[in-house]
């Protein structure tokens, strides 16, 4: 028997992939629907990681990209009746342009100075949305635009394999749409960051002067990183409002969203793409589990649900404190240790 020697991380990757593909058959329908939303959080986090995790240009306002993508698409669909696909396309381009626009200050500004500029952008956008409630929906958000694909009738194949209602069918279709997008974005970022481009990004993070001294135009790469991140973030935002989410500030634009994305990425492991992608999903479900828990905490005489947010952030704080590089690098190191020990053990008797 020939044994294929796969690195453990590929095995884990394949298992996860199969798990995601077969999720509709394994999970209750509402969990599947939540997973769809969680995938989007993962996509948002990846887009942040691509620029901030790799080049070290911290952005505290990535929601501006999701928001610009999502709002542009929603408004075009609602006001001008553009088809969802076209609306998403235009939304993506608009976010890409915003990425380009943020890329330029990033050439002059460093560290916290840049972070402030990125933080201000969504704060101002939220106010603009509030000032034009007519077209932008204001604080209340816009009603849902048309679905990316509309599932009004039960779908034949799904019915035959035992899925009953239209709601279930729609959920499954949206899930696969989100999954496809998630995997595509993951693959795209993976390829880029594992290529020389990623290596230049991390070099920029370490020392921009050193990068320039070997003939690489660091500025060009920084602008590119922002533009691509913005484009992908915008795509995710635009697809989100046409599938799992709603075009309102709390979902895609407010500063809270930006902060969540940073948190997810750092907890997952900055500069790994995989870490933030996975952490996005875990984050969503851990928070949900805490919120819905009705366990009572003895001393405080309160339910877990009641103090869920404080508890949730306390857990995140401890994770960060004990795993300062994030969860993924820790898991990798830990499993490498185990494997090493195991291989030593298997070698020693012989």
């Amino acid at each position, binding site marked *: 028997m020939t044994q294929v020697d796969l690195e453990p991380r590929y095995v884990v990757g394949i298992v996860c992939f199969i798990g995601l593909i077969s999720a509709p058959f394994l999970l*209750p*329908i*509402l969990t599947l*629907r*939540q997973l769809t*939303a969680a995938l989007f959080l993962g996509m948002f986090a990846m887009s942040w990681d691509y620029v901030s995790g790799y080049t070290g240009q911290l952005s505290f306002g990535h929601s501006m990209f999701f928001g610009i993508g999502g709002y542009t698409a929603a408004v075009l669909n609602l006001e001008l009746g553009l088809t969802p696909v076209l609306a998403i396309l235009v939304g993506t381009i608009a976010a890409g342009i915003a990425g380009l626009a943020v890329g330029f200050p990033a050439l002059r500004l460093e560290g916290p100075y840049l972070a402030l500029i990125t933080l201000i952008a969504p704060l101002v956008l939220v*106010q603009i949305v*509030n*000032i034009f*409630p007519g077209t932008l*929906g*204001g*604080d*209340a*958000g*816009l*009603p*849902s635009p048309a679905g990316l694909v509309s599932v*009004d009738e039960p779908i034949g194949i799904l019915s035959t394999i035992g899925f009953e*209602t*239209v*709601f279930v069918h*729609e959920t499954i279709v949206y899930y696969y749409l989100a999954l496809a997008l998630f995997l595509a974005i993951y693959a795209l970022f993976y390829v880029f960051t594992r290529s020389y481009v990623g290596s230049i990004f991390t070099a920029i993070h370490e020392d921009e002067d050193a990068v320039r001294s070997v003939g690489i135009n660091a500025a060009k790469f920084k602008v590119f990183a922002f533009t691509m991140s913005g484009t992908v973030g915008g795509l995710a935002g635009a697809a989100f409002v046409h599938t799992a*989410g*709603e075009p*309102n*500030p*709390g*979902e895609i634009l407010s500063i809270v969203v930006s902060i969540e994305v940073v948190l997810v990425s750092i907890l997952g492991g900055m500069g790994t793409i995989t870490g933030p992608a996975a952490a996005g999903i875990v984050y969503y479900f851990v928070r*949900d589990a805490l*919120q*819905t828990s009705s366990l009572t905490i003895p001393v405080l005489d309160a339910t877990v*649900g*009641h103090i869920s*947010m404080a508890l949730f952030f306390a857990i995140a704080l401890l994770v960060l404190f004990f795993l300062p590089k994030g969860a993924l690098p820790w898991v990798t190191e830990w499993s490498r240790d185990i494997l090493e020990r195991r291989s030593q053990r298997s070698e020693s008797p012989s």
Partner: protein
Amino acid sequence: IGGMGDSDDDDEIKIGLLAYDPGSAPQGTAQQQAAELAVSDLNDDGGVLDEDVELLVADTQGSSSTASDRYLEFVVEENVDVTAGVFVTEVMTALMSDIADHQTVHMSGGHTSPTIAEMLADDYEQYKYQFRPYGNATRWIESISDLAAHMQEEEDWDQVAILCEEFEWTQSFTNALPDLLEDAGLEVVYNERYPADTENFTPLFDNIEGEDADAVVMAQAHSAGPAMIQWRDEEREFSICGQISQIVDPGSYEAFDGDNQYAISNAPAVHTADLSEHTTAFAERYNDEFDVYPNDAFSYATYDGIMMWAEVVEELGTTDSEEVVPALADASYVGTRGRIEFNDEDHEYPHDAKFGEDYLRRINFQWQEEDDGEGLQQVIHPEDLATSEYQEPEWF
């Protein structure tokens, strides 16, 4: 298309309430209390359709995605017969498509933006499952303008200012209220909108004082704290009235340490007002139960909404939404604040409650201090419901 809310196969009537931070935020807490009271009243009365009524409560966390998750658990997993609640407009806007998909009646209890009703006007068939037994904010300005006219006679208010938080529901205050006031013979000397996270009112108040306004009409849901404190501390020479959600909360006098004394707000009801034969009785019962008086539409409307739905269901003999919706749309029900009837499908605001002499009314109350130092919400307008005279701030 198979809806899911109409399944009757479980032997309980289930009501799902979506509340914002119940147990902590006053709005969500009020909704939860009102729903509990309604359910216990229904069960005391033998249940609905001879079945026990069960209340399920979920926290929306003020987030539309959380609310949507919880809503779907109600309608898909728990098969609830009706849902109620929601306070944040953003959450409600997002929830409308879920409600349309799952075709289960929703009795709203807190959000006030006209956009929700406009969605029904645009596409009635899709959104008809939502009912709002207290109407939307555009209808309140008549009551406020009546108050201003009354105060012109009583207190010589001639010039008024308008100051609104930047929200959809305050649009009518900025756009339509000035005309009403001018019709009533008052002069609008200042009319501004400001972001809801504003904390510094000093420059705004300077301007209002600079315009010699006798009173300012405010529309605010978030920034009452700093506004009241600065109005009082800086001893501003104008009165405050309007729709100030935070001071409608009966617990607010304590929370604000009395800083809201003399401030006037519009409200659907307060426990001192005899809006219908049930108002005071309901309020006292509520107070006995929860040690606090009912709060705004969160309490009154949530209670009325559930009771009204139950009455219609009882009459129909089914909880099937397709039958309940038309029946509710035609129903007439006397609740804690008067008669509730809904605008019909062709109205500008379908399924919002009707206002008027024979229907729901709005009152204007002022926080006044009792001899024992406690605050009391005294109705000062309309006159037939007034419980006290207007008191001028002591620093005038």
